[in-house]
């Protein structure tokens, strides 16, 4: 068993070395894995290798590094499919850390600065953060002191003492959020859905006055399926006899719905895999060129 494992490691090492050698060869001979930029109206934007060949773009060390880092993390994530390993753990930790930091910075600059500090003291914010801000306070600017105080109370949770202070703003957040969502769900998902379900069983073609069979069958099936599902979830009556048969139909409708949802999910996941492979084959290894970005090069 141990010998088999050691042999497996040797095979993977040999395959990895070969792949690496091939990648280095492609990079050295045709420039695979290189990224280019150009200056457009004072703004540095990504450019294609063809544009670099024509002399309107230049090699970018930073973008090239980014490209290789992205390729490394893609392969690191894929490596989990073989088995859990330190490289995958490393990639996972980096993504979690970067995401948390990114959220924090974005939250500060997109919410706290414009929507809190910008309301409390717009003139000060205009001088160092948002030149486009009108430096005049609104009529009821002082109301923003309330979210400021609540925010400070929320951060009190980090303090070794008085952690309970953080519960008050949290209660407000949960209560207001629940209230807001309740109304939205009642309106958009409950009332509107009942209204949307009231459909004519027989639909007539407006122009000719004849029965529109496809639409009629669709409406009838929709309503019957909905009623069957409702019967399945109606537990006050034993599911025997006619009720039992209708609830069986309800189960079938639910299964078809779950199957369709699964099909959609599969499609989504395959699309995600496809874009990562496309990135590796196109941007990194230059094996394909679907967008014609390397016309005349490889």
């Amino acid at each position: 068993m141990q010998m088999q494992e050691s042999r497996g490691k040797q095979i993977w090492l040999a395959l990895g070395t070969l792949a690496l050698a091939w990648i280095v060869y492609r990079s050295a001979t045709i420039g695979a894995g290189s990224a280019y930029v150009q200056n457009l109206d004072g703004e540095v934007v990504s450019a294609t290798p063809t544009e670099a060949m024509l002399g309107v773009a230049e090699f970018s060390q930073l973008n090239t590094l980014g490209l290789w880092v992205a390729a490394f993390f893609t392969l690191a994530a894929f490596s989990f499919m073989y088995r859990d390993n330190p490289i995958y753990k490393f990639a996972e930790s980096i993504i979690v850390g970067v995401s948390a930091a990114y959220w924090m910075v974005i939250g500060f600059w997109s919410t706290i600065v414009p929507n809190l500090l910008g309301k409390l003291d717009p003139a000060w914010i205009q001088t160092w953060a948002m030149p486009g801000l009108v430096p005049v306070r609104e009529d009821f600017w002082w109301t923003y002191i309330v979210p400021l105080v609540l925010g400070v109370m929320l951060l009190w949770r980090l303090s070794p003492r008085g952690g309970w202070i953080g519960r008050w703003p949290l209660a407000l957040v949960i209560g207001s959020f629940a209230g807001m969502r309740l109304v939205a769900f009642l309106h958009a998902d409950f009332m509107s859905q009942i209204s949307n379900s009231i459909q004519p069983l027989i639909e007539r073609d407006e122009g000719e006055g004849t029965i529109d069979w496809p639409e009629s069958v669709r409406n009838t099936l929709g309503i019957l399926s909905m009623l069957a599902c409702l019967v399945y979830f109606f537990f006050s009556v034993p599911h025997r006899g006619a009720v039992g048969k209708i609830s069986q139909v309800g189960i079938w409708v639910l299964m078809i719905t779950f199957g369709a949802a699964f099909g959609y999910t599969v499609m989504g996941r395959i699309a995600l895999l496809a874009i990562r492979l496309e990135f590796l084959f196109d941007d990194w290894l230059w094996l394909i060129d679907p967008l014609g970005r390397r016309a005349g090069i490889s």
Partner: protein
Amino acid sequence: MYDTLQNLDRRWIFLLMGLAVAVPILFQLEFPETPTSLAQATFDEIESLRPGDRVLMAWDYDPASEGELGPMATSFARHCCEKRLRLYFIALWPVGQQMIDNTIEKVIRPDFPEMVYGEDYVNLGFKKGEEGVIKVIVTDLPNLYPTDARGTGLNQIPMCRDLESIQQMKLIVNVSAGYPGTKEWVQYATTPYPNTRIVAGCTGVQAPLFYPYIPEQLPGMLGAIKGAAEYEALVNAKYSPAGAVPAKYLEAKRRMGPQLVAHLLMIGLIITGNVLYFVGRRRAG
């Protein structure tokens, strides 16, 4: 054979799936697309607008779902630009801001250079607050967006000077990867204010959840890459009738190649799994 398949290491399935997706990409297999009624309805909603109408382009996705939603965003932007609509970009996802920049770089700048920032399109950027943002901007947009993404005051941007709320938009075009996304736009913007219409492009995971909203609350929807490919075909047929379509407007169609092969493999695996199950049951019995 039975025992081998019964005890097959799942990594062989991963390898098969990897090949089923990789080979069509390497050989760039493509198949024709026939638009369905949902894609047509989405197309018609935008097509019915008049030049100069205001459209809110809500890009609620990030790089993780770019492969699925990027082609939709590209086609939506192209369609709206061809119609000469006024575009207001907005994002409820932190990295949505970069997705907006991508769309502008990919579609507006190279193919519609006559469109002027601040007059024909504006990037209002990302705002934290999920559905809370929608709830506010549906009645008072400048309150949450005192400036655009570049820090320019809204009163200095010609197309934003008289902008009070998103109820002034003729249409909301939402590209959604999850929460917050299409569901929240339907719940907080279009259901309470029925004059505000919406069309959406969403991931495959979300699509089944939105069918109950169609067509009253959600007149048009593109589900996953298939919906994107259908809509892309409609836009190309209308605006590139000569047939010379730039490759960037064929991304969804290209990504349908791996879908077909991978789905065939998936169906084969499901059938094989079921056959093995019944054979196993018979042997046990």
